[in-house]
């Protein structure tokens, strides 16, 4: 195999599973170490630089990092990465002084941001320190987008959101709240140097053709509209018997909110089998914890009315069947079921809708009525208009919106400086030896055998009585430390120098997880078939080095390396070293020279 090019940024980045999986590439293990050292403010700032909303995300993130976490490959459960992020937010000190300063002297470029959700706010945060003049337009009375209108307060307290949205609004953009933009042309005509569209995916799907839909309209609500009405206090109550249709996270938020607004008999009814519901496992758990039944394999067939009033819904029971390609079809069993209800919340998905964008101003739309957007630069076919967040490629989540925002900000900056938006800045990386002494490392290299710690919850009765009471209480400092110790420090890389290796096998012998091999060269399939331990996870690279005296190669399967440093401790010649790999997504081009926030992980 070709020897690994460890200077290539993505080589070691892939080893840091959580960071690699995070759309914004948050340096997770670095902040987890800071938390273990009780340096919460620095942990917070490190997060803030990457993901802009650590307090929000520490409570609500979709956490793609956790299924990716290496710990989950050697033990049952991953590190509670998301909840540790919240610890940083909960225990930090006042960090305002460390936030970037905004130049008095503006750079003369004006940018309009449509929407004040996470995507647009990220663009604002990345551009404001460069002296851009920003105008933010949002139909809502306050900033935050769906984070404010959709995510219920019992998952995300308003104070947390206000604080983090506030950091950005304090950077001085001009805000135009309660301002629905009904024409993109009118904005473009204002002569902005660039326009960012971060208007989300605001349309909830309906069941327009289901019998009874029109007649029962007053008792049927579109989930996301209803949640927004609850958030802005236009809706304060709901009927006692509530059916929530759908199996995604919106359905979970709807049913739990309904329970807090007076529903006594709230159930979720979903077409697909329970295991295939779109909702995250933990969101389902939370609903079940609140005793909400989830009835699966039921396809709605009719809204049933009596004397003009909704009294229930009828469903066809189905069974999931799979063809040879694993494609699912829901086959009716012939059985029909009736469930009584007073009101129905329809939470069966969202889609993009751009009624306010004229189709003749140069923005191309595809056959699904979505704008054509470049996946790297986020530029539309009208060069000065950029898209990001749910508006760009359909509904995703907050962290994806943030990641889009960073990239769009880079593009906008490049565009406004007259440079090509295709010249993307490389990530900033470096490798720093963690050796302090012959066998001492700057990081806690021992691998704790603890199981994942559980986040305590508020008393159920109290929580259900107050829709604003946060259900999750967060880790205390002591538990946070123990959970932080579960992290395997995947960013502390095993770096090999073949020139120093005497092939004594000490590293291969000591390695607890049999990662290291000295063997004859071969192609990847051949090698993977004959390493010391089964090597089947192809998402993880083989680290290959040649130049050994015997002509063999060193082949390390990165898959379940524990980063315990024993290989480097047992190496007599220092051919192995543990080096911390720093990988930071470069933010708007000019920030290359001046990092948004300066954080040094100190030694010891």
């Amino acid at each position: 195999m070709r020897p690994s090019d460890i200077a290539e940024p993505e080589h070691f980045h892939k080893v840091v599973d959580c960071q690699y999986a995070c759309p914004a590439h948050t340096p997770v293990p670095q902040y987890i170490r800071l938390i273990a050292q009780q340096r919460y403010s620095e942990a917070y700032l490190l997060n803030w630089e990457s993901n802009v909303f650590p307090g929000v995300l520490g409570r609500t993130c979709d956490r793609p990092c956790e299924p990716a976490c290496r710990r989950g490959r050697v033990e049952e459960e991953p590190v509670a990465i998301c909840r540790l992020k919240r610890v940083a937010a909960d225990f930090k000190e006042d960090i305002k002084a460390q936030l970037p300063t905004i130049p008095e002297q503006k750079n003369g470029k004006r940018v309009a941001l449509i929407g004040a959700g996470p995507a647009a706010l990220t663009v604002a945060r990345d551009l404001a320190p460069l002296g851009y003049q920003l105008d933010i337009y949002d139909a809502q009375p306050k900033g935050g987008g769906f984070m404010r209108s959709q995510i219920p307060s019992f998952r995300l307290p308003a104070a947390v959101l206000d604080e983090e949205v506030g950091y950005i609004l304090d950077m001085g953009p001009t805000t135009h709240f309660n301002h629905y933009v009904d024409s993109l042309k009118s904005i473009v005509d204002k002569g902005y140097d660039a326009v960012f569209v971060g208007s989300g995916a605001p349309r909830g799907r309906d069941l327009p053709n289901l019998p009874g839909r029109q007649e029962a309209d007053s008792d049927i609500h579109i989930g996301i509209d209803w949640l927004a009405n609850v958030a802005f206090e236009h809706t304060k109550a709901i009927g006692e018997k509530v059916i929530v249709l759908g199996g995604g996270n919106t359905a979970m938020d709807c049913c739990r909110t309904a329970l807090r607004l007076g529903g006594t008999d709230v159930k979720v009814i979903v077409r697909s089998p329970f295991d295939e519901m779109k909702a995250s496992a933990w969101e389902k758990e939370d609903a079940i914890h609140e005793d909400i039944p989830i009835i699966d394999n039921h396809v709605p067939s009719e809204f049933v009315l009596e004397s003009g009033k909704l009294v229930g819904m009828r469903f066809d029971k189905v069974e999931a069947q799979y063809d040879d390609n694993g494609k699912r079809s829901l086959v009716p069993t012939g059985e029909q079921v009736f469930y009584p209800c007073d009101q129905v919340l329809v939470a069966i998905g969202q889609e993009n809708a751009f009624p306010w964008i004229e189709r003749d101003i140069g923005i191309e739309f595809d056959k699904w009525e979505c704008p054509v957007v470049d996946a790297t630069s986020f530029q539309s076919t009208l060069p000065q208009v950029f898209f990001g967040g749910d508006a760009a490629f359909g509904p995703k989540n907050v962290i994806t919106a943030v990641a889009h925002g960073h990239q769009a900000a880079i593009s906008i900056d490049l565009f406004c400086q007259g440079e090509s938006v295709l010249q993307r800045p490389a990530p900033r990386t470096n490798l720093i030896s963690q050796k302090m002494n012959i066998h001492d490392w700057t990081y806690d290299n021992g691998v704790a055998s603890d199981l994942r710690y559980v986040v305590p919850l508020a008393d159920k009765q109290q929580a259900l009585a107050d829709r604003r009471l946060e259900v999750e209480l967060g880790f205390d400092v002591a538990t946070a430390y123990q959970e932080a110790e579960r992290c395997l420090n995947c960013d502390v890389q095993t770096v090999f120098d073949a020139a120093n290796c005497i092939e004594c096998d000490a590293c291969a012998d000591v390695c607890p997880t049999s990662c290291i091999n000295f063997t004859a060269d071969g192609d990847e399939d051949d090698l993977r078939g004959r390493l010391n331990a089964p090597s089947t996870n192809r998402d993880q690279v083989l680290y290959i080095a040649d130049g050994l005296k015997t002509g063999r190669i060193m082949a390390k399967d990165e898959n379940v390396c524990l980063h315990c440093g024993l290989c480097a401790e047992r190496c007599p010649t220092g051919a192995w070293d543990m080096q911390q790999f720093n990988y930071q997504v470069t933010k708007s081009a000019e920030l290359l020279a001046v990092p948004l926030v300066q954080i040094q992980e100190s030694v010891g």
Partner: protein
Amino acid sequence: MSYAKSTFRHPALQPNALGYSKRDYEGGLSTLCAGCGHDSVGAAIVQACFEANIEPHKVAKISGIGCSSKTPAYFLGKSHGFNSVHGRMPSVATGANMANRDMIYLGVSGDGDSASIGFGQFAHVNRRNLNMLYMVENNGCYGLTKGQDSATTDVGSASKKGVANPFTAIDLCATALEMGATFVARSFSGDKEQLVPLIKAALRHPGFAFIDVLSPCVTFNNTATSTKSYDYVREHAAATGAIDVIPMKEEITTDYQPGHNHEVTLHDGSVVHLYKGDVELDVTSRDSAQAAIRRHQSEGSVLTGLLYMDPQSRDFHQMVNSIKGPLRDLGESALCPGQTALDAINASFR
């Protein structure tokens, strides 16, 4: 400095036929110098016992004094162990074996422990064909006492101290052959492909199995002037490659192709020849083994692999017709047969 190894192991590694995981054969984290050959020998023992489906509690590890004799602390942590006096491992092993012939005896020693202070004991345990595996982790020096030349140091070899050794070296394989061992092999700590199957075969051999494992002392004797350094052994090793033909209950295989010649070009351009398969060796003949050892010695290479094996081996118990089972299984009446039996014995001397 780490004092413990993580308890996590590769999740896809399967247990052996007895249901034991490899971890069940491991021991404490080594305190030897980083890179010591002895640690690789320990890893090979772990691998061999795991693969050979040996029950850890059926093994007794017995050793003398030295870095090598310390190594039983770092493997087979669930087995029995006796760290005895310098050079006296054979007597302790003999006693234990006499008391309980059902155990698997694994003696671990060093070149100092066996070829200097314990040379007499070494000779006699060979003669008795005690059923055990006797391994010497041979680094050509007294590692534990800071690297003095040992009795296996070759003439002219110089350790870190820099002074060439003037005395004739003892070849422990030749000695074992001379003294009556019924399984004799030599290997290298850096060659597990050879060493692991040899250990597996030796553990099954009924009688005295001896393996001399060249195991470099990275701290005191891994110099360019030493004949027991990693580089020297690699460059001068010649393997018999005979391991594949051992007539055993279970087939034991290595990755070597007998009779196949290997050429490895080193970074400095020199070429190392590895002769896999010595056509002139008959592994069932002591004379042939002795001749092969001597021939390679005179050619400046070290012959490794299986050198000799006696398929008709009869161990000490068989030779002296001792009791068939462990003494601990004897009931009270057998252990204290009473006055009548004593009188009969006394009468036989009259």
